[in-house]
């Protein structure tokens, strides 16, 4: 009996210690408000190139501001699937990171800015003279009601059609620029026994990305933008035409698309199993770094059909959340992030292009240089699949509608679900 009591007592002691530990943990959370608080940079950059880019950026910052303690608080998981959940709970618990990665556009404006969680950065933009260094379309994407809320660090392009140059040559195919040319090429490839279009929609956003570029190709940038401001209904005939075209494109994809992810789909193009795929230009990083392909020699690219002169923007930006203890340090970091030097140290490693228009072009490869040129001239439109065009809530429902459509291919039902979901836009 005595031994048992002793055991109980020790258990109680352990419990008390655990409670005490929890307590000290939360008090150290309050300690973040101290002067020597850490600058924790929250992102989902844990992949090969992107992590290198982030570390290079942090090193550059440390060099310039050795007195500020920096912490890389990245959360793993592609496209920020896990990170966004962690961020949401931190923001709602009033424990925001010093600065965090957020896609410019609705994800920022309709999400955190609308929730009243962000500080405007107009003064920083003026101080640094950024207002004419970033394209106006891009600044609009990180602004709401005349206030600017974040600093873009990079640009990815969403509407890129990648192709295997050898497969194109062998089958005598010209690079298609319109839908008619694309379907003609696809038919030819199908006859030759090559899968014309690779898709890996195990995660449904890849199919949504194919749909959004089809949408852009048929509607053009003005009408595309109007869809998300409510000026154009999803019941419009043009949207229907886009859905029909999307459906037709789906008849050229690989059968096992739903068990693949975008890397698998890119791999099919790389090894010649498939001729083309539509993916953002992070696929270039995958082709070059992971699959050791040569730019222009092994694979080529063009805009997705009908989107020449248009640029589907996916931009990672960093802002200043309300309630951080060290806003001045955060601004110091943001000014490094927005500088030419900062952008040129980060982007070549990440495989994206700089958001500024005055960066050093020689640091980028052939694809980067061409895209930098396009970025300056093209009309910029926000990507739906990556949360820039519309709030996450709408995107979730679009992803569901697209996932169902890929299998059922019922255009009317698809349009109906898009139209219903657009109630989320108001």
């Amino acid at each position, binding site marked *: 009996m005595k031994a048992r009591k002793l055991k109980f007592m020790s258990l*109680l002691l352990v419990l008390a210690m655990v409670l005490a530990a929890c307590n000290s943990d939360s008090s150290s959370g309050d300690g973040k408000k101290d002067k020597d608080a850490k600058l924790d940079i929250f992102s989902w950059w844990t992949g090969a190139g992107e992590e290198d880019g982030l570390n290079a950026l942090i090193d550059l910052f440390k060099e310039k501001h050795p007195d500020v303690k920096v912490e890389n608080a990245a959360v793993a998981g592609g496209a920020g699937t896990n990170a966004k*959940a962690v961020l949401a709970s931190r923001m*709602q618990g009033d424990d925001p990171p010093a600065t965090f990665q957020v896609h410019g556009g609705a994800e920022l404006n309709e999400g955190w800015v609308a*929730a009243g969680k962000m500080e405007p950065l107009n003064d920083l933009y003026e101080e640094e003279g950024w207002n004419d260094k970033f394209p106006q379309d891009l600044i609009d994407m990180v602004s709401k009601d005349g206030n600017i809320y974040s600093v873009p660090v990079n640009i990815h392009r969403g509407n890129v059609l990648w192709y295997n140059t050898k497969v194109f040559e062998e089958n005598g195919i010209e690079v298609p620029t319109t839908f008619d040319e694309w379907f003609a090429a696809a038919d030819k490839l199908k006859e030759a026994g090559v899968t014309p279009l690779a898709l890996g929609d195990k995660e449904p956003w890849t199919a949504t990305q194919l749909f959004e570029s089809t949408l852009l190709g048929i509607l053009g940038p003005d009408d595309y933008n109007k869809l998300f401001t409510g000026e154009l209904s999803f019941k419009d005939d043009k949207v229907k035409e886009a859905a029909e075209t999307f459906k037709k494109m789906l008849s050229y994809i690989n*059968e096992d698309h739903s068990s693949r992810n975008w890397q698998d789909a890119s791999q099919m193009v790389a090894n010649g199993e498939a001729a083309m795929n539509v993916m953002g230009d992070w696929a270039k990083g995958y082709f070059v770094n992971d699959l050791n392909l040569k730019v222009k020699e092994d694979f080529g690219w063009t805009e997705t059909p009908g989107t020449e002169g248009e640029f589907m923007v996916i931009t990672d930006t960093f802002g200043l959340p309300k309630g951080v203890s060290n806003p001045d340090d955060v601004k110091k970091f943001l000014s490094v992030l927005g500088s030419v030097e900062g952008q040129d140290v980060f982007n070549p490693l990440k495989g994206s292009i700089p958001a500024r228009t005055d960066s050093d072009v020689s640091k980028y490869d052939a694809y980067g240089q061409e895209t930098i040129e396009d970025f300056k001239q093209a009309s910029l439109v926000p990507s739906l699949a990556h949360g820039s065009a519309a709030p*996450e809530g709408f995107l979730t429902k679009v992803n569901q509608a697209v996932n169902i459509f890929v*299998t059922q291919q019922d255009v009317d039902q698809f349009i109906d679900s898009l139209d219903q979901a657009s109630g989320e836009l108001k």
Partner: protein
Amino acid sequence: MDPVRSSVKHTPPELKVATKRTKKALTKDHLMAIGFLTPSLILIAVFVYGFIGWTGYVSLSNWNSLVPDFSFAGLQNYIYLFKDFRFQADLRNTLFFTILFILTVIVIGIVLAILLDQKIRQESLFRNIFFFPMALSFVVTGVVWQWLLNPSTGVNLFLSKIGLDSKWYTDTTIIPGVSWGKIEFGIPVAIIAIVIAAVWQMTGFSVAMYLAGLRGIPEEVREAARIDGASEFQVYWKVILPLLRPITISVVIIMAHISLKIFDLIYAMTGSGANYVTDVPGVYMYETTFRGNYYANGAAIAIIMLLSVAIFIVPYLISSRKGES
């Protein structure tokens, strides 16, 4: 919840003695027991039941964006779900996954346990082999089986080489596919892949349970049946299996609560699948809450999942309490 208890039900005398003793000594020991139980009771009250209540409250609110909004929404979130194609598909998938999973685990469990019970050599080796997959996490199982069953790798590559269909893993067919609500009702072909992986992992558990049950049946019972002229098959079918009923109930309860709440295996293995053929409420809850920021909708899914598990657990708890008193 305690699987062992039902198998050792035939030892109540000791229990009675214990209760008698505590009734007599309602002093220091009793008070100390209460004192020691209180902290854990408070913790469970707050962190389990408190949060269940909170989730229920959120599920009745309008909190469907990043900004918390606790205004009362009535059953709106529940009504939305039951009208939703994806949630209807989830309910269908969970139903058939649970049925197929439990049936297979029980049948294979009994067969393997009976085989192991034949006083074979190296019995503990086999026991360990069957039980070992239990030591893995569902995520690991999911990733491994994803590679094994993927149409372009593994087993199916072999199948397609010998001319058999290798696309079943991503098949969106529903058998028999009766139209019901917004969905087709029936067994989704693709869910069979998940059942295989889950069965592979959990069968060891039911083998262990049934083996314990078989060992608990006295040899005299079998002898008696044999003397009465029962064939070996009849001994098992008419005598042993009925005696294993309490084990079966425990296995069903435990497997049901695993399969109704399943998330990690499916998330790692197939994801939601084309046309949501392998989606389950757990995956939907995660995506709608943390990606779409529909907190109230997510809470409603959580409550529906809790109720579906309660359908299995509550009658079990009531009957086991009756059995004790």
